[in-house]
């Protein structure tokens, strides 16, 4: 494969940003992920799909440092990544959302999104405690960046609302806003459309495409709704029972017999 290419809709896909090599993850005797390798290229939307229990979320947790694989290597931006705590991964520029929404329920939407900027705020604790020049400047700058994202995702109306009071669909969007606020090099979305109705799904798809288009953010997402994924992504990894059973463009994957079997079930004679 060439180092970079242009998609039919005119976006440039760059070189390899993240490379997973031979990842194996075990919980006691259970192998959640079995020797999986795939890569994520700069600027692309990469989907990981598979039936329930296929190990998709585990894979995302490996990328974001919540789980540590027993075997295999994670390469990020051309360097092998040592075993890292999740907050170090976040500081490297990998932001994520969660399947079951992990927001700060007691805080306002604005505060939640501001938390996404923490990796960009460098002033120390004493400067912050005294609230002198640098700390104040930094707050204003980051606040501006946050306001842009709030505009972008059309959540201005609920800026001051405590997140706990929001409906599910909006919470998902706030979570996306918080991840986006970090200006990540790689954005991980864990089932961004789970539990949404058709209209909300369309909204979310549009936002994902816009984010990729506008900021050039590389996105890796997990979904089990095949239809949405096929429309959205450039390349798809298909997992089943912890193994990789397919990898390629949506069209290639759709024609793969093993994938069809995994999704539709296969008659055992």
């Amino acid at each position, binding site marked *: 494969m060439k180092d970079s290419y242009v998609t039919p809709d005119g976006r440039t896909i760059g070189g390899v940003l993240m490379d997973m090599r031979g990842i194996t993850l075990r919980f006691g005797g259970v192998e959640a992920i079995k020797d999986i390798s795939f890569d994520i290229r700069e600027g692309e939307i990469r989907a990981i799909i598979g039936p329930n229990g296929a190990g998709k979320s585990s894979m995302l947790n490996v990328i*974001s440092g*919540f789980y540590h694989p027993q075997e295999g290597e994670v390469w990020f931006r051309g360097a092998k990544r040592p075993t890292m*705590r*999740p*907050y*170090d991964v*976040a*500081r490297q520029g990998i*932001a*994520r959302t*969660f399947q079951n929404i*992990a*927001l*700060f*329920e*007691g*805080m306002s939407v604005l*505060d939640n999104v*501001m*938390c*996404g900027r*923490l*990796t960009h*705020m460098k*002033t120390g*604790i004493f400067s*912050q*405690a005294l*609230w002198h020049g640098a*700390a104040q400047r*930094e*707050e204003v700058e980051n606040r501006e960046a946050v306001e842009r994202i709030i505009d972008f995702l059309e959540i201005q109306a609920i800026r001051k609302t405590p997140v706990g009071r929001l409906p599910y669909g909006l919470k998902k969007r706030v979570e996306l806003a*918080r*991840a986006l606020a*970090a200006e990540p090099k790689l954005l991980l979305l864990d089932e961004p459309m789970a539990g949404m109705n058709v209209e909300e799904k369309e909204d979310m798809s549009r936002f994902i495409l816009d984010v990729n288009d506008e900021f050039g953010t590389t996105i890796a997402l997990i979904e089990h709704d095949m239809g949405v994924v096929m429309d959205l992504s450039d390349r798809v990894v298909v997992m089943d029972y912890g193994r990789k059973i397919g990898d390629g463009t949506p069209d290639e994957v759709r024609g793969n017999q093993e994938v069809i079997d995994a999704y539709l079930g296969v008659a055992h004679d």
Partner: protein
Amino acid sequence: MSADFLYGIEVILNGLMAGVLYALVALGFVLIFKASGIFNYAQGVMALFAALTLVGIMEGQVPFAHMINAIFGTEIHHFGWHVPALLAIFLTLCVMVAFAWAVQKFVFRHLVGQEPIILFMATIGLAYFLEGMGDLMWGSDIKTLKVGLPQGGSRWIEDMTSGLGGDDFYGFFIDKLDMVATVVAAILVMSLIAFAQYSKQGRAMRAVADDHQAALSVGISLNFIWVLVWSLAGLVALVAGVMWGAKSGVQFSLSLIALKALPVLMLGGFTSIPGAIVGGLIIGVGEKLFEYTIGGMIGGATENWFAYVLALIFLVFRPQGLFGEKIIERV
């Protein structure tokens, strides 16, 4: 104005000032409980330890003097210098931060994800360890804390108000130390709230209090935040220790002030900073007023139990406290 009415006001004022100190101790609990779910039984002992350390540093006491003397047969007790109060307070604060770091590094880091009861037991162990440590380092005799805080009733206020209620009223008796304590505690509480509300670390603190996983995902180190809240609790303990120590001497019963914070927490809710303040004020005023109005009829000394009875009543009708998060079990 009748003298009775004016005495009532005086009681309320004194109650408010006592209440601010209760609130201060309760605040130490709330900080740690919110951020890590640990009910820190050692908070009172931390106040004692901070006060002991402060006196020890100011007086130029040699730490572990008894142990050193027993082992080496020497006779050292003092370095022979006196450290000025402000410097000593700063040094004590450094000790409390070091303590916070050590607690996190050697105890709670290894207990992440354990049941709350296990964390609670660990803090009980910590309390006794710290009490023994204070004894070993600074000795067990009662010490007086002289940081230059004023003592006794304010003559000025008494003179100014003595004409208000006719011949039966001799003016408000307000303790100067109480006034200073109130002002200091109020400033401390307000700056803690401002810090939590507006600073970057404060935002991270609130984030950790809300959701550990989400906090990790935005790049917050839980360990750092936990050391931070233990340090802040240490600061609160130091201030509380200084105020109570200046009032009644630095002695080992000082650690019992933690028990006064329990009803405050039940009233205000374990997770609410405003709750700790309002709870403290209600308990402070409540117990003084109760003693003043009803105490005399039932034999007095009601201050010992009034707060607990009030807390019990609260537990029955509003278990989450005034400001606490309501516990809703979803099925």
